[in-house]
């Protein structure tokens, strides 16, 4: 360009500008390095605060996380060079921070070390990420597997019924010493199914059927299958007492239905159904009823002389963090006891990183969701749009339900904080979600480049 600039007077008029989105792979790499460094810094900070020395595993931990992230980055460079450069670094940073928090809590519970297993699961997750990015050349291929997806999702959802309940919920299956939460995997499959089905039938959904009052009711032939799938999955989850996930599926269903049909009425119906369901379940289910009571009166157990319950302990932890936090390794969120590394991991972040750190974590999730939505907006074809919106909404809803639960905003439902919480299935699933978002965003931005304008 600069060479041409000298001879501009005699040159041909410039070709009409093609809108080119920069690839920004270098920025992605820089952000990944930053994410790894931040995680290693957190790991060292825990060791320094606890023992006054850098923990011996710091170099290994940094190298492991770094190699994983670089491999993922190479895969993106190779097969999704146009992908959004923020998605992968956010995944790395959240995963790294989760490992730091779990390692930090392991120090308080010497008999129950979770960080090594989490590192193994993270490796598997990144491997799955790489696999998806390398193998899945175009996300539209997934449309072919609409019914495979829904069948697999339903099988995965029903599988835990055959296994004994753990802590009151039948959501685990145990294979060779590892426990797996199939509901986690099912949510991606279900998102794919919803997106594919709604993309294929959205016109029929929007424009056929009878009109009842202000609502355009689609014909049963079109709406039937999807409502059936949704009812089955939510029903199964209620049987398994996994109310968080059923709430998640419900939210996903309503959001995608709204986006696909553009009918505000669906939101009204959704809210009405949600309210009815919440009242019914809250009344009839003692487990849920207890959760609601705890949410309304978190300190009732203290006044009754029974000591602080988990939610109260969680609130104490957040409160102790204050604006700037106690510093990594210096909080006492372990007082929460059971589930401190899984459902309540956010309390540790809140206590030790403070409101500032917690806001940063929330904003990271917000950015991840926003990038997903942006990819959805940029795409032209409905399946990709719905898939991107569905996956991003899954993250948003899950973060809201669990974070709102542990901070006392809404009743508590046991779910895993994406990337942060202890739990292999969750980490692997979230890497799959990020992989799909990378793939979709690659298509979206390639489209803009005009190289793949379809």
């Amino acid at each position, binding site marked *: 360009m600069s060479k041409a600039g000298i001879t501009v007077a005699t040159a041909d008029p410039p070709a009409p500008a093609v809108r080119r989105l920069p690839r920004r792979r270098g920025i992605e790499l820089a952000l990944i390095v930053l994410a790894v460094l931040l995680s290693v810094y957190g790991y060292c900070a825990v060791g320094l605060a606890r023992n006054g020395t850098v923990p011996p595993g710091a170099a290994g931990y940094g190298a492991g996380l770094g190699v994983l992230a670089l491999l993922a980055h190479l895969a993106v460079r190779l097969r999704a060079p146009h992908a959004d450069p923020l998605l992968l670094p956010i995944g790395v940073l959240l995963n790294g921070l989760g490992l730091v928090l779990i390692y930090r809590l392991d120090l308080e519970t010497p008999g129950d070390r979770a960080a090594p297993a989490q590192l193994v699961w993270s490796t598997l997750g990144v491997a799955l990420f790489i696999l998806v990015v390398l193998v899945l050349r175009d996300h539209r291929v997934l449309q072919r597997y609409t019914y495979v997806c829904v069948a697999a999702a339903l099988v995965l959802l029903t599988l835990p019924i055959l296994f004994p309940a753990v802590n009151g919920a039948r959501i685990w299956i145990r294979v060779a010493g590892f426990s797996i939460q199939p509901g986690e995997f099912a949510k991606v499959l279900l998102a794919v199914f919803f997106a594919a089905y709604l993309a294929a039938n959205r016109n029929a959904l929007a424009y056929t059927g009878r009109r009842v009052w202000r609502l355009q009711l689609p014909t049963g032939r079109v709406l039937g299958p999807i409502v059936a799938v949704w009812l089955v999955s939510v029903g199964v989850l209620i049987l398994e007492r996994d109310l968080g996930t059923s709430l998640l599926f419900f939210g996903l269903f309503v959001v995608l239905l709204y986006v696909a049909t553009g009918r505000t009425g669906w939101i009204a119906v959704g809210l009405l159904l949600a309210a009815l369901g919440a009242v019914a379940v809250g009344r009839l289910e003692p487990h849920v009823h207890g959760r609601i009571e705890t949410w309304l009166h978190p300190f009732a157990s*203290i006044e009754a002389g029974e000591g602080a319950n988990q939610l109260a302990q969680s609130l*104490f932890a957040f*409160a102790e963090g204050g604006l700037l936090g106690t510093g990594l390794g210096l909080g006492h969120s372990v007082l929460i006891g059971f589930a401190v590394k899984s459902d309540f991991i956010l309390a540790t972040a809140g206590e030790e990183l403070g*409101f500032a750190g917690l806001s940063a974590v929330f904003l990271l999730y*917000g950015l991840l*969701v926003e990038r997903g939505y942006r990819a959805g907006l940029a795409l032209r074809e409905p399946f990709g749009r719905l898939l991107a919106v569905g996956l991003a909404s899954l993250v948003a809803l899950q973060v809201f339900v669990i974070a709102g639960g542990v901070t006392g905003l809404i009743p508590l439902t046991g779910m895993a904080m994406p990337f942060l919480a202890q739990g292999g299935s969750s980490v692997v699933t979230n890497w799959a979600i990020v992989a799909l978002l990378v793939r979709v965003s690659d298509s979206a931005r390639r489209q803009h480049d005009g190289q793949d304008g379809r």
Partner: protein
Amino acid sequence: MTRHIRHAGFFCALLLVALLVNAARVQVVQAPAYDRNPANRRPDIARYEQPRGDILVGGRPVTGSKDTREHLRYERTYTDGPLYAPVTGFASQLYGTTLLEHSEDGILSGSDPMLAPFPLWNDFTRARNSGGDVVTTLDPAAQRAAYEGLAGLKGAVAAVEPSTGRILALVSRPSYDPQPLSGNGPAAAEAWRRLNADRDRPMLNRAIRQTYPPGSTFKVVTLAAALDAGVVTDLDAPTDSPDPYTLPGTRTRLTNASRGCRNASVREAFTLSCNTVFARLGVAVGAPDMTATARAFGFNNPALRVPFPVARSTFDTSLDRAQLGLSSIGQYNTRATPLQMAMVAAAVANGGQVREPYLVERTTRPGGSILATAGSRAVRQAMYPSTAVRLRALMREVVEDGTGWRAAIRGSKVGGKTGTAQHGRRNSGTPYAWFISWAQGERDLAPRVAVAVVVEDAEAERRNISGGGDAAPIARAVMEAVLASR
């Protein structure tokens, strides 16, 4: 579709805002209330996360801290726990703190803002300061002498330095070891239960928290009032007192333990401890002057702190003449702590001035740099200096050739006053043996120590119980210990 994706995105943004606002509510707005919740264990964990500062006696710590590696990490330890328990109190993770451990808790636990290097520094760093030390005024030799003197007895000793008010010894027996109370396990609960169930009440600090009828030792106060009021001018003039003396307005006849009180001079009456003479003197002085003098000595003061609160010693203010007579010989409603009676002896030794007693010489930062020193204390003139001179002479006579001879120390000036206080219904209880005294060493310019000793239930036969017999030797041992030091 684009429009609806935007709507959905807006909805997600709304969720994010809700989370952020709620987090701010919990972590900033409600945080102080949550921090104060009694079920929140974080303040306790922070409190016991570091070793506690020490209480020093004679330059050496009598306390320590033990790392238990438990959630509440450091526990208090005590060297010579029973010896110093009436001063240190206990610091328990279950039962809180008492005495110095309580009143100096901010320094010892490190929470006192004075320990911070700069104002507001700790609010910024969230750091907790290491605990500072508390240096006491106690004289370890005097404390031990008092403690051993009371071995096997029930009673208390208080010793002060007359010219300053520094407390040199504060002992209560039977005592207890605060150590087992330190932790939070079942052992601490068991020790607590046992100590509270003990009928001898070992945790009662008899030197400051228990009041006794002072008996004849109160005659020092009565005589000070009489001399100041001019009721007595000549100590050697006969007083025209009957024996027994019928209390005015009653048919109660007051008698004496000693012979020779009829018509005795004040000097003789003081040495012999004649009830009749002093009851008449009190009546002659009158309630207003008696009350004023007692108050000047420190009676009826509910606010005395050394720095932990001292029980109020009482001299009744609304008395008829018979009650006034009884009160003037330390009976009826007159009650005093051993520390109060040590203050009485100290006032005589110190030219009539009462120095408010104190126990903390200074507090220091962990490194030893001084945080605060004992400030100037209130001084009250309890009697004219000339009165103090005359009383001093009288008290010396008690020791040199009176009931207090057992307190004499060769080569030193010692003044004293014995007391045997009747109590219980119709005076049926075993009397309390009292002795108050002061001592001035051969080369001292002023008396160095004033002591009060009370023995509750001496194992002697009742008629043998007397301040001179039981209490004076203990006082003597304490005074000797003080005079020998330095």
